[in-house]
């Protein structure tokens, strides 16, 4: 079937020649994440990965660990789908250690609070650090492999990462829905 491309291709701001080139570079990749074909590809890969995880982690009964493994597999599949053109995809593929994960999670929770505080303009006065800088660091921690990037690249990576994440969420929810439906279906005949 025809793959709808660039469904949500944001209007490339054709600001200037140079900018245009730059932006064009950033936009199409983002649009790519919205195509159905991409999603399908990802779904199939994801299903396979999940099954493999299932098989491999047969011993590990913890749902938690398995879910983490599934999540890792999903992220890796996402990175593969990204064809390694982005930093975060390469970072994911080049070794996503569990400790990084844990650290990310921990850090995520912390910034979460701080960020919310900041955004919600809590009374906590931010010690006049370069606010933007701080937030950039936080974002860098969120996006895998973008810890110490300058804001410029960070924003670019973030946009691609957000698009990829959206696709991942869409694919996984669809799969989950299908599976659950299938499960229910299989349960019936049984």
């Amino acid at each position, binding site marked *: 079937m025809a793959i709808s491309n660039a469904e949500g291709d944001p209007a490339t701001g054709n600001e200037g020649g140079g900018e245009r080139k730059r932006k064009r570079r950033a936009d199409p990749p983002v649009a790519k994440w919205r195509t159905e074909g991409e999603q399908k590809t990802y779904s199939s890969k994801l299903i396979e990965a999940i099954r493999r995880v299932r098989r491999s982690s047969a011993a590990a009964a913890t749902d938690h660990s398995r879910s983490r493994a599934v999540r890792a597999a999903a992220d890796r599949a996402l990175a593969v789908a990204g064809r390694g053109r982005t930093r975060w995809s390469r970072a994911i593929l080049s070794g996503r250690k569990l400790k990084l994960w844990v650290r990310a999670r921990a850090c995520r929770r912390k910034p979460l609070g701080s960020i919310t505080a900041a955004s919600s303009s809590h009374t906590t006065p931010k010690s006049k650090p370069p606010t933007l800088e701080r937030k950039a660091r936080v974002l860098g921690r969120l996006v895998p492999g973008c810890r110490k990037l300058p804001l410029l690249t960070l924003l670019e990576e973030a946009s691609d990462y957000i698009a990829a994440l959206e696709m991942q969420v869409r694919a996984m929810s669809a799969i989950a*829905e299908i599976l659950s439906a299938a499960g229910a279906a299989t349960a019936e005949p049984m």
Partner: protein
Amino acid sequence: MEKEGFWGLQWQSTGAKLPPELNSGPAASDQLPQCFLHLNWKQPMAHDADFESALSSLVSSPCSNPPASADGSGIGELIGRLGGICNSNDISPSYRYRSADASCYGTPLNSPPKLNLSVMDHRQQGRGGPPMPVNRVPGPHLGPLSAEPGFEDGAARLSCFAGRSSGSFAGQFGFLEPGNLSEASRSESPKAGFGSCVGVGQNRSERPAHLETEMRSTIGVSSTAEKSELGNGPEESSLSHRMTAEASSLKGIADNNSGKWKTAAKRKGREAPLSSSATNPPANMTEEENSDAKRCKSADRNGGAKNAAVKPKTEQNGDPGHREGKDNDHKPPEPPKDYIHVRARRGQATDAHSLAERVRREKISKRMKFLQDLVPGCNKVTGKAVMLDEIINYVQSLQRQVEFLSMKLTTLNPQMDVSMENFLPKDMYQSRGLMPQPVYPAEIGTVLSYAHQPQTIALQSVMTSGLEAQFSLNSLQSSLRQSQSMQHATTDAYTDAPSQLGGLWEDDLHSVAQTGFGQNHGQTHTGHMKIEL
């Protein structure tokens, strides 16, 4: 001070010529005594139609300060002439008049008579002259201005005048024409004042390109003012009015402009909207600069559309403070408005760093805008900090969603496995001659498109997704055959096909995925499947 006087004179001269611009000059220009401007401008008027515009822009540019004192009436004339000539922003950039005050491009101060002549010559020449490589985006119009070689000479002279006050000019002119600037800078000291005057005039008016070039060549002084204006606009040739108004504030303006232009210079041709420009508040400039800044702002605004009015950065930024800020205080530094312009702000170092930084900021804002579209609900949010907050929150929420879904899939996995295993016994893998199922691919497609179908179909879809990967396998064919029945029948097929498919999936999926689909599938339906994957 002489500078101020210069300014006034300048404006005067230019005033006559640039009636249109002057009149419409930015508010700042109001201050400049119109009379001043008219005085001197009359002369140049005759010949410089273009100059007028340029000059007016010069004058009208932020030099709202009425010349402190028309001390140099003669000078004023010079300035006026120059202003007219140099209205084209070009002039200023070339003249890297350090004299901050010398916001005005043309340093008519030097010698009115000379100026007139030179101005004339330049004007005519400059107009069509080689476009000055004005850093500003609106470069083209600048080019012609600076082109005038003769103009340059005159401008050089003027620059001498401006040298004094053209601390800012230097900056301004710089961007306009590096070459000219050198000339102008030569005579910096004496002409600083001049330059500033002239430059000032230009600040705001979006002088037409030709004006700019002219201006550039002739006046390094008004670089600042003009530059900003030039950047803005060749579209607006409100030089005239500006010139008048800015006569007094030339100096100040020049400084401001120079600041703006400096950055702008770097950004030649860069996208217009440079927020950075705004960031370069003509801090250095004195009040004059403020007025200039204001004018430049207006010019910038106009020129903003042009895109990155990368006005030649006026190096006046450094000296702008020197300008006799007549009354430029009234205008707050333009920089805020120059946000979109890539202009060297007055008072800002016209070094590469500022320019680069401005460019960087531009890029960042661009990316932020892009992200704004990506992240839902960020349209009203403005400001990098809040936007970043939103982005961070969104990424976190997405990641949490993924985590949740993965957990869900994990729990569902057994279901998947179970159902798969039930349906697709592993021993089914071997290749079997399966007939291509044209319908199947369609099924697959629909399935994968996440159409919500009845459960039976849903299961099929799951299998089909696996099928896709296994096209090349003959076993697939067999399973397809079986699944074929599935399509029509429901549960029955499930038991058969799914089991086969399940087995196929597990082992063949990998290989299939790697080898590509439809390898050996002589069947037509592979084509369909291939498409999917």
